[in-house]
């Protein structure tokens, strides 16, 4: 029964562009993007407990790498791959030093890294065009971007599901619960954390490449900015960290709240937005998905997958 519903939902999204509603179409693209970012963030944050406030760095690196290489003449598909690859290499490199930090230290250092990337891309303007931004070949890519984003979201959810039911997922959760004891019992902690970060980064990086291709123009604050950095993290936490459908719910919730507030309140919509986030943080520490009624509903339809 659940499979049928899920299947119908999937089909709906697959044929959506046929309905020819560009505003909603664009909204969905943004939604898919944020879902992807929140889900890929949660692969590291929710499963291993390492709250990577710098997750967006992978996105931005993918975005810029793609843009630069494609402009230099590299084939489109290779450029997409290169963006992903760059994010992966970056993740591997920083995993060594950064995973020596714990808790809030790790989160802050990661965030500092994003600020650093933002400043570097601003200042190395000979390469990145700084605040003028990077521009790529123009084209109307709304439909393909829609499908690419949707596919990537499906992919990240599928991968999350696989990990959750695997040895790797178990190891990741043990690190989150008691890292030192996990190590005592032979869990290769450093390797697992690095693996989680790499998988997390690869999705974000590829999405970054897609993003540049779609929006044609990127600048440092668009892909490394504080706001866009905190959004996926807030979405995952608000929706429910460690549950597959959590970040999805968080993204949908926050985007809808933002849209509603923006259209209803001429002023103070950000304040209301902040208030919403505050209340969820205060009263629903496990995120929306762990609220009694919602949780029961999701369990009943088999969509509550928690690690």
């Amino acid at each position, binding site marked *: 029964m659940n499979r049928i519903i899920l299947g119908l939902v999937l089909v709906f999204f697959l044929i959506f562009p046929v309905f020819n509603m560009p505003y909603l179409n664009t909204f969905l693209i943004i939604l898919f993007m944020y879902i992807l970012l929140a889900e890929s963030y949660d692969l590291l944050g929710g499963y291993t*407990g390492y709250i990577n406030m710098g997750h967006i760095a992978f996105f931005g690196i993918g975005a810029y790498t793609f843009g630069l290489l494609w402009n230099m003449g590299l084939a489109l598909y290779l450029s997409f791959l290169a963006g992903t690859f760059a994010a992966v290499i970056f993740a591997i490199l920083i995993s060594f030093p950064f995973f020596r*930090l714990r*808790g809030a230290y790790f989160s*802050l250092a990661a965030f500092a890294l994003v600020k650093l990337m933002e400043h570097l891309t601003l200042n190395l303007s000979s390469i990145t065009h700084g605040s003028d931004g990077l521009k790529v070949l123009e084209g109307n890519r709304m439909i393909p971007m829609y499908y690419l984003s949707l596919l990537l979201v499906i992919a990240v959810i599928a991968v999350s599901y696989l990990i959750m039911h695997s040895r790797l997922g178990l190891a990741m959760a043990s690190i989150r619960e008691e890292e030192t004891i996990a190590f005592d019992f032979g869990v290769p902690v450093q390797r697992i954390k690095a693996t989680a970060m790499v998988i997390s980064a690869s999705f974000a990086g590829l999405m970054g490449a897609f993003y540049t291709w779609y929006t044609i123009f990127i600048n440092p604050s668009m892909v490394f900015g504080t706001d866009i950095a905190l959004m996926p993290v*807030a979405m995952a936490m608000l929706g429910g960290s460690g549950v597959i459908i959590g970040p999805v719910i968080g993204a949908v919730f926050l985007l809808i709240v933002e849209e509603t507030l923006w259209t209803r309140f001429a002023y103070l919509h*950000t304040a209301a937005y*902040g208030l919403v986030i505050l209340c969820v943080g205060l009263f629903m520490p496990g995120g929306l998905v762990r609220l009694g009624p919602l949780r029961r509903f999701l369990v009943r339809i088999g969509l509550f997958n928690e690690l």
Partner: protein
Amino acid sequence: MEIAVQLVIAGILQGGVYALAAFGLSLIFGVSDVLNLAHGEFLMLGGLFTFLLFSATGLNPFLIGLMMVPFAFCLGYIFDRLLMRPLAGKKEHIRLMSSILVTLGAALFIEDVTSFLAGAEEKGVDYTLPSFFWGDIFISYLRLLAVVMIAALTVGIHYYLKKTYTGRALRATTQNIRGAMLVGVDTHRIRSVTFGIGSGLASIAGVFYVVLLSISPDMGLGVTIKYLCIIVLGGLGSLIGSLVGGLILGLTESVVSYYTPHWGQTAAFLILVLILLIRPKGLFGK
């Protein structure tokens, strides 16, 4: 040569202001072990009210700032009591997540409401005192006053932590929260008091900002991140750490900005990341 000294002095001054706000945040973090993303808002509010009161009365902004400290303290105390206390007992990564959400939400709220009520533009206080030359070096009384105040505050805080009961209770809570509870420290109250102190320090820093630089309602988050980075750089709850961290950042910005404009902030963050990688607990962290 004079340029170098000038730069160093400017850097030290800037660093001192950083250290002030950073230290408050370090105390808060040390005691409550949560990330407070709303810290910059207290700084902004401190500067804002100074601006408003100065525009209305023309009083010496530093006097205004000092008068506002009790208010900032109360605000911080209430903030903790209402918003942070419920998070205290949770498991570490859940507490971290909740504190990010709660303080981020609060920061967004404060920024937007302030922007709405007071206008979103930058504000600055033009309060000039004469300057003088020391040999060939240009020093303004204003900045000198800033240094003196910061030094006095640092000594004051140091004394407070070492000698008074609440100060020592605070340090005890930072080091070992269970132990402190066992010895009869009301850790919840201590945390609220610490929050108040931290907010008070932030509001004073805000005064410096509004006089020496400028403030605007949306500066909060950026400032907070910077200060969080400084305290992590310097090491938790360490007075020296925040001082040194703030100074390093201030100096780096000052010196680098002079030679290669735009790179000041970048260099600062670069140094931060590098130091953290070499010493994960920060320069003076335990």
